């Protein structure tokens, strides 16, 4: 069962919202599908992003995937630890493998995202 404390996108990202700040990462399913992640490129802190923008890339031995902004807002912080240790995306995708934090511009956008049950349905099972 996927974690029910957060919301999900159809691009297999999660966002955990606390107040005005959303922490974003990729799901265990996405990390498993990508396989061993070897490079992560993250957005610039301070930049504004729109919902659905490609804001970074996650590259594994086998493939490369875009990282999308699940909501609009300002990038507050990025996880430098995964730049140095990209394997965190595989070993700890929901905690230590987080990608960036964003200040939500419009919290009503969250209603467009999937809850845990809907996301579980998306990935099957």
């Amino acid at each position: 069962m996927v974690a029910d404390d957060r919301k999900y996108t159809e691009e297999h990202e999660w966002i955990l919202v606390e107040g005005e700040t959303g922490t974003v990462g990729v799901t265990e399913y996405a990390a498993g599908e990508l396989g061993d992640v070897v490079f992560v490129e993250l957005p610039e802190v301070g930049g504004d992003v729109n919902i659905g923008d490609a804001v970074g890339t996650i590259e594994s031995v086998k493939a490369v995937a875009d990282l999308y902004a699940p909501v609009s807002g300002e990038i507050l912080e990025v996880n430098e630890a995964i730049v140095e240790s990209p394997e965190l995306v595989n070993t700890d995708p929901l905690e230590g493998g987080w990608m960036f934090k964003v200040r939500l511009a419009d919290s009503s956008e969250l209603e467009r995202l999937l809850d845990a049950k809907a996301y579980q349905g998306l990935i099957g099972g």
Partner: protein
Amino acid sequence: MVSEIEPTLQRTSLSAWHESHGGRMVPFAGFLMPVQYATGVLAEHAAVRERVGLFDISHMGEIRISGEGAEAWLDGLVTNTLGGIAPGKVVYTAMCREDGGVLDDMLVYRLAAADWLVVCNAVNRVKIVAWLRDHLPAAGARLEDVSDATALIAVQGPQALPLIERSGTLAGSRDDIAGLAFYTGLQARVKDDRWIVSRTGYTGERGYEIYLPAASAPALWEELLARGADLGAVPVGLAARDTLRFEVGYCLYGHELAEDISPLEAGIGWAVKFKKAPYVGLEALRRQKEQGIRRRLTGIEVEGRAIARQGATVLAGERAVGRVTSGNFSPTLRQSLALALLEQPLPAGALTVEIRGRRLPCRVVPHPFLPARVKGDPRAERELPA
């Protein structure tokens, strides 16, 4: 998952084992093959560099050729020298078209005076069998495509020999296998069958390849994994097979080699002989050599956190000077590296490689990226940058 994959894909005698042991199955060259297992590509890669890994490469094509005329005939179709080699010897060679383009790269085994085995890439098997049949002399040589009946298990890594020496199945040939020199093979009697064991591989590590009847493969596979557990033996999928061969500069057909690439351009000129009996492609290759080749396989290191994959354009200033044939993260060196076919001579000035619309700086580096790990391995001889 499995049911979603095209039913037309061929299975090996080990496909069911892979599926039930966490193998992620993908279509490859018409076969359903494991690209990786649950522990992942990096762990599998490290296992082969540091310990030992098992590969199911039963998709490869095996063609038996026999007859008194086989030696001269086969020698006339390949770039390396087969004429006069001793039984037991294995030769890496290209097979070319008249214009020097590569039909395939392959291993040729001389099993006995008039008995040969050609091992070609799965993707080219139909083409190579047809090419051989088209060129078959009226008498003196016969060929048989035994690919479907033949399984191939590669055992690769520093612990490969200790592992094989533990095999009860191969016990009757233990000392002979231990005595195999690089690029030699033997026929091992196992029950009523003759298996072929050679000291060859596609990883740069010390290793062995075992050709056996398809029906016998699952038992040997399980025996080797069980007896090798404390040596760290693990099954290894195609993704790590690719990163392993990439680091040591072995060509992959469809990447570094193709019908529009010559073996001289691809850096396997050491397997192209000019002082041997005439063969298909010789004149074209001789002309290329005399006139100078116009492009050469070159190692590059990408600066930045991105992989330059096959097809990425390499530029000198604003001008395209070639394209990437293979690119990946090197698990051993932890760098983003690529092999690229680049024009010769390379213009002076900074190089970039275009990855998803961005130009990242890159530089020419020696390849193979890892120096030869097995003494006398010509496929892993370093070519210094021009």
